[in-house]
Every structure is written in C-alpha cells, then in structure tokens.
C-alpha cells in the first residue's frame, strides 16, 4: 500500500526528471561522472542515498524490485531500503535475481548473469577513482578532462614494488570504453569482469558527492593493470559450505569461539537456488 503523504517513490516529479536527465547524460558518456542536485533523503548520506534516488527516478509501478547489500537480501540496510520503496511506491519486491526488473545493490554484482531489460543500481560512497591520490575535486576533474591518468598507474606500480602484486582488492579502478577511469563502487575485484559487456543497464549513484555515472548495456570495461602483471579476479580458494559452489564470492562466517568458521555464498539468492536444485556443500546438511 502506497503512503499517500508522498508522491510515487518519494521524490517529487521535478526532482525525478532532473535525475533522469543526469542518467541520460551519464548513459551517453559512459564512465563520466555527471553532477546532479542530490536531495536529502530520509536515510543518512553514506547509507545509499545516491542509489535510492536513482532507483526512485527509474521505478515505474510495474517494476519488481530487489535490494541487496553485501550480496544478501536480508541484511538490515537492504531490508530498510526495500521496505522504503514498498511503502512509498507500492512496487512488488522479490529476492530472485531473475525475476527482478530493477536491482539496487551495495558492494556486489549478483552471481547470476543479468539480462537485457534489467537495471542494476549501485550505491556509491566515493565516485572519484582518483580521490585518494589527489584530494582536490578541481584537480581530479581536470585530470579526467585531460585524460591524465598517470597517477593511477603510479599507485599500481607502488603496489607491485612493495607487495609484488596489485594490492587493491575492492573498488578496483576500471577504464570504460578506453576513455574514463571509473570507480566501480566497493565491489570485490572478483566482480569486476561482470561489469564488462553486461546485458543490463548499470547505474551508479553517489548522493553525498552529488554524482551519477553509468554503463550502458554491453559497454567494454577494462580493469587497470600492467601488461606483465595482468588483472586477476581472485577469491578465496574455497567452495561454499552450504551449496558447494566453487565459483561464487564467499563470506567467511565465524561459527564458534574456537576458530571454527565456514564459507558461504555472499549472494543469498544464488545459494538458495542452488540448494533447491539439490547442490550440497560441506555443511549443507546441517545449516
């Protein structure tokens, strides 16, 4: 049931139009950070206000919404955002990746490949991939404009010199269609390959930083690396203890005080689906 005190999906129509214009611009220039007049939302900055505004601007009554945080549908922030739209937009919700028309996510890309017609909305804390190399917005904007990305590789060089490998494990920077360097939001680098050539529309919203950027379907996205130190999408070398999946991203769960732990899929829908199909991991019978 929609809350009558607010318009559909909370934001007023003018604001939604403003956000849609920013989204269209972002889709037209993939990877470019489009400034937008981010609004205060009833949840705090840093808790997904950018993603929520993008979702609000994209939702139509026929949509079926899925919200995940850390890959899971049942984490508190995911529950809170899903409830917010159930209340303010009255849209149907789902936990099934395949059934969703719009998925808002924090920190993960679902394991199941997305299809044409789906929209994936990322919550972004720091949209600027160069931010921690150069704190000034005025300077980083110039660097993007002039395509001066040498500094980004200096960071990767330093990683290899110090650690023997590129020591960036999440929010791993990418280059979009050979032009803009982009922060993929803090997804694990394991998810980076899914950014490229994805059939779905990928939208990124940063509320506090007032930026929107996007990847249209089938955009080429390359993770930055060196020719002799190529990017690898690594993950812990375990299989899921519940569903036995060997190729999904895993959460480590501490099970007792004695150092006991288990590894389970971070994508809860993916894991449940596999178990329904009869797959079983090391502890699949007990959990």
């Amino acid at each position, binding site marked *: 049931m929609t809350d009558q005190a607010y318009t559909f999906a909370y934001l007023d129509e003018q604001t939604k139009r403003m956000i849609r214009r920013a989204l269209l611009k972002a889709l037209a220039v993939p990877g470019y950070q489009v400034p937008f007049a981010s609004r205060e939302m009833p949840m705090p*900055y840093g*808790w997904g206000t950018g993603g929520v505004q993008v979702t609000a601007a994209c939702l139509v009554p026929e949509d079926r919404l899925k919200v995940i945080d850390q890959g899971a549908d049942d984490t508190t922030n995911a*529950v809170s955002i899903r409830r917010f739209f159930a209340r303010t937009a009255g849209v149907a919700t789902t936990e099934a990746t395949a059934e969703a028309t719009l998925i808002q996510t924090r920190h993960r890309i679902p394991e199941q490949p997305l299809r044409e017609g789906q929209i994936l909305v990322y919550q972004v804390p720091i949209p600027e991939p160069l931010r921690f190399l150069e704190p000034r917005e005025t300077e980083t904007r110039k660097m993007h404009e002039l395509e001066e990305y040498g500094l980004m590789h200096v960071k990767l060089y330093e990683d290899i010199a110090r*650690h023997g490998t590129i020591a960036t494990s999440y929010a791993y920077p990418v280059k979009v269609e050979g032009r803009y360097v982009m922060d993929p939001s803090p997804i694990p680098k394991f998810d980076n390959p899914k950014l490229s050539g994805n059939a779905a529309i990928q939208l990124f919203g940063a509320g506090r930083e007032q930026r929107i950027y996007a990847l249209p379907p089938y955009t080429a996205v390359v993770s930055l690396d060196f020719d002799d130190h190529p990017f690898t999408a690594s993950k812990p070398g375990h299989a899921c203890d519940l569903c036995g999946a060997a190729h999904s991203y895993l959460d480590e*769960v501490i099970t007792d005080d004695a150092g006991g732990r288990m590894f389970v899929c971070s994508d809860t829908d993916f894991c449940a689906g596999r178990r329904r199909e009869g797959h079983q991991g090391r502890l699949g019978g007990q959990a």
Partner: protein
Amino acid sequence: MYVAVKGGERAIDNAHAWLAEERRGARDVPELTIPQIRQQMALAVNRVMAEGSLYDPDLAALAIKQARGDLIEAVFLIRAYRTTLPRFAASNPVDTAQMALDRRISATFKDLPGGQILGPTFDYTHRLLDFTLMAEGAPEAPLPGQPPVAADGDTPPHLPHVSEHLNHDGLIEPAPQGETLPPDLTRSPMELPADRALRLQAITRGDEGFILSMAYSTQRGYGRTHAFVGELRLGRVAVEVDIPELGFAVEIGEIELTECETVNQFKGSRSEAPQFTRGYGLVFGQSERKAIAMSLVDRALRWKELGEDNIGAPAQDEEFVLMHADNVQATGFLEHIKLPHYVDFQAEMELVRRLRAEAAAAEAQQHQQQPQEAAE
C-alpha cells in the same frame, strides 16, 4: 545459524520500538509538548531551522522532540522533509535595514544613531547555575525586561546599517546589489570555484560547530582578517513575494534573523586604494555565534577577489570549507561505517593472508640457505 549473522526485519522492528520507548522516557514524567520546546528551547529550534534550511519553528520543535534532542538528527529530519516540499515562489530579497530590531550592537562605534540595543543576550550574564529554575513550580513573576524603545518612542525601531556610515566616507568597500540571480544550493550541485552567494548559502546552513572552529582559526592566525563586529542585529523582517497577477509584492509573513557585518582591515590592492572590507553573516533566528562566525569565514574566503595572499590556511580553502561544512552529509558518511563491509573486508583478508603466506615462504627459504652459506 547462518541467517542469524545477517539481521533482518524483526530486528529492525524491535529496535524501532525500543527507540520509541527511550524517546518517551519514564511515563510518570509529563511528555514535552511542541509549544514547550518552541517557547523554552528557542535557540535549539533556531539552530535546527538554520541548518535545516527551513523556517518553521513548529516543525523544528517536532524534529527536536522526535530526535530526542539530538540537533543534527533533528536537522536531518527537517532536511528530509523540506526536500519533498513543492516550490511555489521565490521571495524578494529581505530588507534587513527595515528590520524590527530586538537587538543591535556595534563594536566599532561607542555610540551611533539609534544607539546600542542590548536585547535578550547571554553576553553579560554570570554563568552561574540558577537553581531556582530547577525548583518545581517557580513563581511566574512579571519579567523586568522592557521591549526595546527608541528615543522617539517608536516600537520597535528601524535603523540603517552601521556600514552605511562608513560607506558615506568611502572608507568601506561598496557592496552593490548583484545583477544575477544567486544559484540555489538545494537545487543545483555545488560547483567550484563557488561565487560569494553560493559560499554564503553553504556557510549559513553549515554546521555551527564547524563554522565556529573555522572562524576561530582565522582569529588565531590561520588566515587572519582583523575582523571587528561592525554591527550585529537581531529582529524580524517581512518576507514579500511578487504576485505576477497583481503586479506588486505581497507580504506573506515575518521571519526572525540574525545579521552580522564585520569590518576588516585591508591595505590596498592591485586596483584599489586602502579601504575597509566586509564579511557577512545572515542566519535564521537568534543565532549570534553562527552569524559572527559566518562573517569571519566569508571574509577569509574572499582572499582571491581582494588580491590577498593565500597562506594555506584552512579557512582560506574554499573547497575544504564548503565540502565539509554540511553536518547532514558529514554525519551520514561518518556513521555509514557502521554498515556491514564484510565483502570488502573479506577481500582484504584474503589478500593479507596470501601476502603473509608468501612472506613466510620467502623467510623459510632464506633459513634453508643460511646454514649452507655459513658453511662455505
């Protein structure tokens, strides 16, 4: 076992119920009413209106009540509400020279036309706890204070700005009315470099504590501007809106404002003879500390247009000041680190483990070689 790790709907519901109970407190204590907060916590209400950028004392009082007295949380509630409100019109600029004054002081002139009006201020109180306020049912004696009365008997007085007196002599830089409509920070993203109008907007809704500290740092030598309070005034001004159908402006209400204009020293520049310069502060309600701090920070940020040196002081750094002044942005991002980050942390943990394993392997190899070398 596994689901328990991830929280869920019931946990949220329970937390909200508990919060509501905590907000209400013990049931044998009467519940605060909105009029009580509005009347007796007026300065908190003012701060919430100023930083919430919404002039509505009743809603600000409600927000304070709902937020259990956490003013930043209250500001946040007001901002979230404000953003949903439709815009009917933009008012004409308020005329603070026509302010119905409750207070008006100048630190630069001992006396001046209209005189100094002290008004309701803490300034000269002794900061001693008044235990009679603690006593139940203290007698409501008629107040000894007088409403301000000007010499000619008008109540309340309208007085021109102190800076006008300096302006006559050409001693202070003119502050002409701008030609262009100022940008609206709540409707368009912050663009740097920002013009003065945009800076003032960001500062007036910025966190009082932050602006205070920035202003204080200029006084301590980090971007010193030698500020004097030329005038500090508090009072009510009419808000007028042009009605196109009528062809004239209609007064839609009154708001209380605090205005501060500083007079700052300045020893000439590339193009101008020596003149005093101005810093400006304007804040909703009685918010003197904020208005003064605002005018100091405004003045410090003007170094470029006035041809002064950038000595690298934080208060001279427009981007630093404007990007960190908003407490709703700041508190949200600060507190978001409470949210789960296990995906990222997992990735880090995996990396550290692998690096540690490699380091251990390298060390083991070295140990193996050492005895041989020693034997040679």
